[in-house]
């Protein structure tokens, strides 16, 4: 059984939670974004925006092999 690995980017105030293996982060097959966040130990209330391959997704979305994940706290600008 091949492992599922994904790329993770954590931004702004979440940068401190980046794992060393962010470019090849192993995750269980069928895991959701919610599982991922738990495994990275990011408090849920710090998270606002979740992207999988550039598209915003909810916590329940299942992560697939090769996905690029981007996670942001609440941010704004103009």
């Amino acid at each position: 059984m091949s492992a599922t690995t994904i790329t993770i980017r954590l931004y702004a105030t979440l940068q401190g939670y980046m794992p060393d293996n962010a470019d090849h982060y192993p995750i269980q097959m069928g895991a959701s974004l919610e599982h991922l966040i738990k495994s990275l130990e990011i408090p849920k209330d710090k998270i606002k925006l979740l992207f999988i391959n550039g598209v915003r997704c909810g916590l329940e979305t299942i992560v697939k092999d090769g996905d690029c994940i981007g996670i942001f706290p609440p941010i704004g600008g103009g």
Partner: protein
Amino acid sequence: MDKILRINMGPEAAPSMTTEGVGEYAGLGGRALTTAIVAKEVPALCHPLGAENKLVIAPGLLSGTTAAMSGRLSVGCKSPLTGTIKESNAGGQAAQMLARLGYMAIVIEGRPKDDTLYKVLINKDGVQITADNSLRLLGNYDLVDKIKSEAGDKVAIVSIGPAGERRMCAASIAVTDMEQRPTRHCGRGGTGAVMGVKGIKAIIIDDAGQQMRQPKDPEKFKAANQAFVAGLKKHPVTGEGLPAYGTNVLTNVLNEAGGYPTNNFSVGRFDNSSKISGESQAELENQRGGKGSATHGCHKGCIIRCSGTYYDKDGQYVSKQPEYETVWAHGGNCGIDDLDAIARLDRMDDDYGLDTIEMGATIGVAMEAGLAAFGDAEAAIKLLKEVGDGTPLGRILGNGAAVTGKVFGVERVPVVKGQALPAYDPRAVQGIGVTYATSTMGADHTAGYAVATNILGVGGTVDPLKPQGQIELSRNLQIATAAVDSTGMCLFIAFPVLDQPETFQALIDMLNAFYGLSLTSDDVVALGKSILKNEREFNKAAGFTAEQDRLPRFFKKERLAPHNVIFDVTDEELDSVFNW
């Protein structure tokens, strides 16, 4: 604020002034006031550089009070860039001081019979207008230094650089910040050219001896302001994100979302975006240190402090922390990934008095034309220097992306009504595409900042990659923004105001307590609608039709990677934005 200062620059006579009561303009401020005056008093068919155009400068309804965030100064006219009505606003110190001196607006009319340059001094004793040709072609930084040596370091200065004097359509009007640096600009639409053709180089505002404007109900006002401040601090965008990272925090999220216009709007992601992100910028600023480096307010009374200060590797001041729009325009849009180069370009724009968005988009078009390679920062700096020097090439570039595209035969020119698109690709952020197409201002992001809901999840969520929901989103934000633009409030209050009803209520409570009114949120909406109606009517009289409420064709034909999307809101839908 109970008076309007009218300055008539001629040509029938030498410059003269009158101060009058506000008359029919009572109850208006900021954009509501500039639009009312321009719509009523400026013939819609006039030449923007002619004597019939007027330049209106107005603080907002709450400027000069103790209300937090109330330092925005609005400038209005018929735009030489777009030919539409224009309102552009900036932070800095001028709005607070002008309001405390009692001026609702300054209206500059006519144009001088020759090319004499004037400076205007406004203080508690009155107004003086003096010829001063020694100021000719000074950059804004040297100009401020010269004025400081005569007028002291507490005055606010509203000025133009050589770009405005040369009547370039990308010319801005600069406003000095708390350090008396000319870093906050009324950027969009060439208002600097109108100030230039009217012969005014600088307006010096000295509110020494003046008090804060007093509310009708001080207790209610204080309580409302406290609730307002609490709301701003509580919301994570205004309370944490903006002070830590500034507006450039947007680079990574727009890039992630695939809507970051790269290499003149040819692709939606920039490979080197992380080098110029807000996170990298903050890290660099913190490393280099210096006063106000990563957190800095542009006006007294700002509690968000989204700005910062950019020092070079030797600790020398370069510019204020470049904003997201500037970092995009001079960075990813031109393929440039060097923060130091971007800061230099920002300083040059501020010094020459130019809109950073228009200049970055223009250099991107120039690169597409082959004048420089994408990514070549030194070449970009050389091109911008031509603008500052007023060379023939500089005059082309200084008149913006549309003119440059025409002169060099470029098809991919990202403009609406002649004004360059800001830092969000409309194919991947379709709500902002609707705003770009339909705003009375030309392609403008602040006019109806759909990015908040399309990308940032503020005020709900609307999928940025599809046309559904975008019309309503843009419409509601355009209405709300026109109202906020009248209060003197920084638009970033919108983040807490859109998410926290109690913060929106606190803003209304402040207006009511200050003026002794009983406004409701319906009145705020009605104000926004009436401003847009005024602006739409002016534009119609100026010759604009539905055909100009469109994006350039390539946004509908050329798919944007990575999402492979085109802008597919229909023309019929665009024409329904103002149906209410």
